[in-house]
Every structure is written in structure tokens, then in C-alpha cells.
């Protein structure tokens, strides 16, 4: 008998009926994260061949055995492929609503890929090359992948593209909502008009702005989906997504200083549109953000939030060779994502697994680059995963004593 409510993953007694196996799987994959000892060994490596040898001892095993020359980029590529393989394995075992949940995780990468394909095609790059560059976690059906970059720069081509992106891809909804927001007033949604609009948006609006607008819509949508699932999933995931939304809002504000988005008339329109309507900063702080035009004002808005106050303190100390605000956010993310594994029988671990794996790949690339560029002093500036010596754990132990 099919599920009466497809959004219900079940409670503590019934979750395992459909999701026990994938959850155990994802936890199994979690044990494949590099350990403290692995990181120590990696940091001692003299060259990338040593790195490869050390990785063979870990869960990565023979993932690079076919390569003759090791580069950080190659390590990244292969590590991503490994993650995607594991992700797809989990997805193959999943049932609703877990499948939808996993697809939501993929949407983020799909947005990146669509942006890459569209912009790449507009600047006349090779289709195959573009498809090779796409993140393998965000691939559509091969036919659609090929179709997107093949559009012509004619009204009909744009209309076709509108059709392809809006209807044939799962993230079309975000695109159509984004276009709706950018539609000049007094236009109806007829095909030709839409084609013109797509063209206008693609050619005029900056790629990062489109991406961040889509990400905002995506985060909100994912948030609502998790709320609908309810239970522990909602509790864990909403916190994680909220944290991400907060991070985005702060970063967008901070990084727009000195740019056109910081112009007074842009602050209340374009920049405001990028703030996700979720998270702890929404709505009071995000509406204050629209008034903010320099770092001191931003600091004042963040003052009432202890978490962000700490992160801001890191930012202020950045010039003294300490961590940057990005490192601080990464650390907070990892800390929260690790917590998702603490509870059982919810979907948090699936999301956390992908995100932590992403961080691990970032760490690997970082270590690899540091080795290649002989930056020994900087090599330890990555965020360790599930480590007893993680900065926040050390801080907490220090506080407890």
C-alpha cells in the first residue's frame, strides 16, 4: 500500500520502515570522512604523490590510481565523483519523501550548472567543455543538458530556452519566479514577451545576482519543504538552512560594500531581494541590512546576535593573520552539520553528509595547494571534520575547565 501522506517520513518507530537502510548507509559513508590521523599524515606530505598514497590508506582508497600525475584540481574532481557516486547510491535506495529531499540537495548544484551553461553559451564556449565543467551532482537528463547550451540568440531561441529551463528542469520554478520579479511592470506573460525577458535578464543581470536570487528562492523552498516534512527533520534542517540563509545575508551585505549593490537605491531593491526570508536574521535584521552601507553599521545590526557577534569579531581580527569571516562561517557550518548526525531517524544526515563532504574536498584541495605552493605555515587552516581538536570543541573544553 502506498504512503497515504507522501510527505511523512515516519516517526521513531516507523522511520526505519522506509528510510532505515539509506540512513544507515549515509552513516556508513560518514565513517569514510578523513580522520584526525589522516589529516595529520596529509599535512606531513612532501608532494602530491604522498598525498595520494596517504589517501589510499583512507576511505578514498584507489580513487586516483588511474592518474599518472596528481594535481589539486584532479584530487578535487575525483573526490567529487566519489561523493556523487555515494550520493547516487543512497538515492537509488531511497523512497519518497527522501527522494525529494535528496533532489532538493541537488537543486543547488543544478542552479549552478544552469547558470554555467547559459552564461557559457552566451559567451560562445564549447558545449562539451561546458558540460564537462558542470558539477556532477547537479546534472539533468543528458538530453536536457545538451539542449540548454544549444539555444540560438534569436527570439525563438530564447523562447525555446525559456521552455527548456522552465519546464524541463526541476529548478524551473525558481527561474520563473525570478523572472516574475524582474518583469517590467505592465507586461503579461505571453511567450514572446517572456523570451525577450529571458534575454534581457541573461544579458543584463550579473550572473552572481541571478545565482543568489535563485539560491534565495531555493533556500526558502527547501525550508518550506522541510517544515512540511515535520518532526526532527524540520527541527534539524530548518536550523541548518536558517544558518545558511543568515550566512548568505551577512555575506551579501558585507561583500556588496564598495560595489554597485551598495548604492542607496540598490540597497532597498536589488540587495534586499537577495536576502532569504528565513533564518534568525529574518525579518528584523534583514530589513535593517537594507540601511547598512558600511562595516560599522553592519556590526551594529549584528550586535544583538551573540553568534554573529563572535563571527564578526573574527572578521575584525582578520588582518592580524587570523581566520577570515569565511573560515568562521565554515566552522559554524561544520559544527552545526556535525550535530545533524547526533540524532537518528530524520533526514538531516543526508544533507549534512553532502555539505561536510564538500568541506572535506575543500580541505583536501587546500592541503594539496599548500603542499604544491610550499605554504607550510598555512596548511592547518582548514576546518577539521568530526575532530576532537575542532576549534569550537577546544574552546568548549577550555570553557568547561
Amino acid at each position: 500500500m502506498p504512503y497515504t501522506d507522501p510527505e511523512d517520513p515516519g516517526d521513531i518507530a516507523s522511520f526505519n520502515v522506509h528510510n532505515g537502510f539509506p540512513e544507515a548507509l549515509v552513516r556508513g559513508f560518514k565513517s569514510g570522512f578523513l580522520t584526525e590521523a589522516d589529516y595529520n599524515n596529509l599535512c606531513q606530505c612532501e608532494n602530491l604523490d604522498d598525498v595520494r598514497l596517504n589517501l589510499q590508506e583512507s576511505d578514498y582508497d584507489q580513487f586516483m590510481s588511474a592518474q599518472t600525475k596528481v594535481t589539486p584540481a584532479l584530487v578535487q574532481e575525483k573526490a567529487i565523483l566519489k561523493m556523487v557516486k555515494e550520493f547516487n547510491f543512497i538515492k537509488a535506495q531511497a523512497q519518497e519523501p527522501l527522494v525529494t529531499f535528496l533532489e532538493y540537495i541537488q537543486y543547488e548544484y543544478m542552479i549552478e550548472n544552469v547558470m554555467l551553461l547559459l552564461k557559457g553559451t552566451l559567451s560562445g564556449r564549447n558545449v562539451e567543455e561546458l558540460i564537462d565543467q558542470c558539477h556532477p551532482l547537479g546534472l539533468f537528463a543528458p538530453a536536457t543538458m545538451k539542449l540548454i547550451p544549444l539555444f540560438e540568440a534569436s527570439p525563438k531561441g530564447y523562447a525555446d530556452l525559456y521552455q527548456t529551463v522552465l519546464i524541463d528542469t526541476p529548478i524551473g520554478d525558481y527561474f520563473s519566479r525570478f523572472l516574475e520579479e524582474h518583469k517590467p511592470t505592465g507586461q503579461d506573460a505571453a511567450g514572446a514577451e517572456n523570451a525577450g525577458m529571458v534575454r534581457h535578464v541573461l544579458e543584463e543581470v550579473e550572473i552572481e545576482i541571478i545565482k543568489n536570487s535563485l539560491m534565495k528562492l531555493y533556500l526558502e523552498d527547501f525550508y518550506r519543504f522541510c517544515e512540511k516534512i515535520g518532526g526532527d527533520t524540520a527541527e534539524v534542517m530548518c536550523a541548518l538552512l536558517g544558518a545558511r540563509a543568515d550566512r548568505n545575508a551577512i555575506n551579501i551585505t558585507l561583500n556588496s560594500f564598495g560595489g554597485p549593490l551598495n548604492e542607496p537605491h540598490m540597497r532597498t531593491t536589488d540587495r534586499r531581494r537577495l536576502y532569504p526570508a528565513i533564518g534568525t536574521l529574518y525579518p528584523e535584521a534583514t530589513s535593517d541590512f537594507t540601511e547598512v552601507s558600511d562595516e560599522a553599521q553592519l556590526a551594529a545590526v549584528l550586535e544583538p546576535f551573540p553568534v554573529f557577534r563572535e563571527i564578526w569579531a573574527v572578521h575584525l581580527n582578520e588582518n592580524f593573520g587570523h581566520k577570515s569571516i569565511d573560515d568562521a562561517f565554515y566552522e559554524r557550518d561544520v559544527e552545526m552539520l556535525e550535530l545533524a548526525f547526533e540524532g537518528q531517524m530524520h533526514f538531516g544526515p543526508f544533507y549534512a553528509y553532502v555539505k561536510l563532504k564538500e568541506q572535506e574536498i575543500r580541505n583536501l584541495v587546500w592541503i594539496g595547494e599548500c603542499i604544491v605552493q610550499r605554504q607550510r605555515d598555512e596548511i592547518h587552516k582548514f576546518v577539521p571534520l568530526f575532530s576532537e581538536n575542532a576549534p569550537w570543541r577546544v574552546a568548549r573544553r577550555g570553557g568547561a575547565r
Partner: protein
Amino acid sequence: MVGTSPSEVLCSSDHCNQGWPDVLTHMSPFGWAYMGIAFALGFSIVGAAWGIFVTGSSIMGAAIKAPRIRSKNLVSVIFCEATAIYGVIMAIILLNKISDPPAPADTASYEWTTAFFAGYALFSAGLGVGLTNLASGVSVGIAGSSCALADAQDGSLFVKILIVEIFASALGIFGIIVGIIQSNSAAFPNP
């Protein structure tokens, strides 16, 4: 009965249906006893199966990346299985309490009060054991599932979580002990 007057419903005969109390008092004590057996066995096995389901899916998944846990964690499945066995044992014990019903000629002289007492006792013993084992089975299953996941991450956790499982399993034993005591005082009179 709809549309009829109360006077038509009420009848003066001893065997007339007077409402729910009638159902309880007019059911055969043998019926009660067998229903108790059915509940004991059925609920226990539902609990066990549920527990194995919950544990099994986790063990399967966790054993993919950590195959060493596969035989150790069968203990969790066995704990679940135990609740089914409690149900079976209880069912057999209860079954042994039942003697043959009186021959039609002896019905008048049969000790119906004792028989009813035995019937109710066996029914409630069976239902109690069934429900406790259901709860015990599910909780052993959930603990077992966690046990498998924990063991896969860190082998030293196995014994610690196994203790939790033993406590969950003990819930079923409480039920069975009370059930046995309850059913001990009950005996169908020999015809």
C-alpha cells in the same frame, strides 16, 4: 433497531441482549481464554517483527561500510526474536490452563463462575503479555537500530548500547512474569 421503540428492544428474557455488559458476561469463558492466547501470540509477534524490521534495515545499511558488525548485531535481532518467543511460551502456558468444555449434559452442574474467572484471567494475561511484548519489541528494535549504527562508527559502543537493549527487552519479561502469575491462579474446572 432504528425506528423501534425502547419497549420493543427491552425484553424480559434472561438471554436477551442488554447492552455491552451483556457481551462481556455472555461470551464463553473459553472464548475469552482463546482470545487471550491469540492476543499474547499475535501482539508479541507483531512487536518482534516490527523490531526486527527497524533493526534489520539499519544493520543492513550499516554493514555495507562496516561489515564486521553483521554477526555481532544479530544479537539485536535475537532480542527482538525473544519477545516473539515470550509470546509463544505464554501462549503455550495459557493453552495448558484450558481444559475440555463440559459435555452438553453436564452444563448445568458445571462451575461457570470458576470458568469465567479463568477465562477473564487468561484473556487479560494474554492481552497484557501481548501489549508489553509489542512495546518491548518496538523499543528493542529502535535501540537495536541505534546500536547497529553506533557499532558501525565505534566498536566500543556496542556493549554499552546492548545494555540499553537489555533493559528494553526486560519490559517484555515484566509482562510475562505478571502474566504467568495472573494465569497461575486461574484454572478451568474439570467437567
